[in-house]
């Protein structure tokens, strides 16, 4: 077992439990924005893609890394854009009254 495994498992278990507690509290009203936001956050795999592509160890790893950079960064940008747009639409009765 590699040295980092136990500490990784530690981090994973704690984050998963924290995630469950946090997400249970999200109002069902916002479940769609929740999904697009967590998608955008999950797109942090772009950092791993950048490293794989930037190290250019083999031609294959560089190309796969670059595709992964594009795919995950599009998720990051698109996810934040659409979450922000959706949340702008949620207004209370008072705020929705237009002049």
């Amino acid at each position, binding site marked *: *077992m590699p040295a980092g*495994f136990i500490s*990784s498992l530690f*981090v*994973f278990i704690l*984050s*998963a439990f924290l*995630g*469950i507690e*946090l*997400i249970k*509290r*999200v109002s069902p*009203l*916002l*479940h*769609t*924005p*929740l*999904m*697009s*936001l*967590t*998608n955008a*956050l*999950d797109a*942090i*795999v*772009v*950092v*791993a893609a950048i*490293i794989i*592509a*930037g*190290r*250019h*160890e*083999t031609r294959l*790893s560089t190309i796969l*890394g*670059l*595709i*992964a950079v*594009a*795919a*995950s*960064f*599009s*998720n*990051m*940008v*698109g996810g934040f854009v659409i979450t922000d747009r*959706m*949340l*702008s639409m*949620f*207004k*209370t*009765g008072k*705020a929705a009254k237009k002049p």
Partner: protein
Amino acid sequence: MTAADTQQLIDFTYIAAAIGFILSIKWLGSPVTAKRGVIIGEIASAVAVIATLCDPQVDQYKWIIITLILGAAVGVPLGMVKMTAVPQRTALSHAFGALSAALIGIAEYYVAAPGVPRFQMAEIGLEVIIGSLTFTGSLIAAGKLQEILPQRPITYVGQNYVSLTTLAAALGLVVALVIHPEMTFLFPIMIAVALIFGIMLVTPIGGADMPTVISLLNSYAGFSASLLGFVLNNKVLIVAGALDGASGFILSVIMCKAMNRSFTNVLFGAFGQVQASAAGAKEERAVKSASPEDAAAILAAANTVVIVPGYGMAVAQAQHKVRELYDILTKKGIDVRFGIHPVAGRMPGHMNVLLAEADIPYDKMMEMDAINGDIPQTDVALVIGANDVTNPAARTDQSSPIFGMPIIDVDKARTVMVIKRSMAAGFAGIDNPLYYLDNTMMLFGDAKKFVSDIVRELSGGGH
């Protein structure tokens, strides 16, 4: 600064990013703080990306910058889609997320192959399998939602055995690779099998089960990122992936509960297909139908109205007309609220987003449990494009396939009006006794047209 110092600095920014992600989800919990949640999430992601670009391991930038720009160029239009297209966009983003996780795992494998340590081989194998099956599964889901592929479940005899055998084969190949790391030719076969399994997993699932499937794919996409974090020993990936995975998991549990079904039943049950045969036994019973004029008169005389929207409202693009109806009734002093079933639509929260887009205030959108207590005191329940989620058979008829599923109790309202294209059965193919009740009036027609006819009547005729 030495390379080790820089690495430490990058690790600190990753910790900061992880904190940002946690706060981001915490703040999303309520509509009041949700915007702040997005901003902290954006800052955290940006900090992590910039720090990574400063990593000394990264020694060539040209192509990375080009692909980042390319990613943004694809991402922005995908972020600007119409609200009705949000379910397919979400499925597509699960596909992209899973694809990048899988590709990074594949790249890691080929850099180290054939000398991949056994433990890491197992991690990479699982990670690539989950990433690959989520990629193809999400593409199929997106295709179904975009209606490029048929929404009905596609099934054949013995399907579940074939699917499970395929999954077992993929896992068996991982075991083989762990035992014999030198047999590198098995790795692409494993990827192919996983890709095929993803297709098999989603093809038999029908449109109305999409909320569960999308949530489940969300959870897989998250866990594949987490597993990648294990492979690369990168904690920020583990945190983000675990949060995303937990979110998808919780949402799928909520969706399953809202349909009174288990995960296995959703994945292997092929609901619509099985029930279609039961619908044949439907007896002809009398229903009362009404014109837009009648409907308008009853609505105008009401004090309280609850509107129950479903996927049909989204299909007919009726949400803006529904807003006009809401405005005109509210102006008359009528209390109008919306009762939203957790599985109404094609993804969790779908109806809320559509109604919010149409400028309906969110404090008028009620959850199922919150509205059900008020329905007996409600004058009119207006069902627009929803069917199974209002079926009282779920409460009363033990032989019904949906018995036990929580529903919005519209039948308890003084008057029920149902806008529906025809008497055809809903997705589950189950007859709805609601339509034959004495207090029910059927409003036959296209949801958008019927609502605008009612609006025209209420606003005193003319154009």
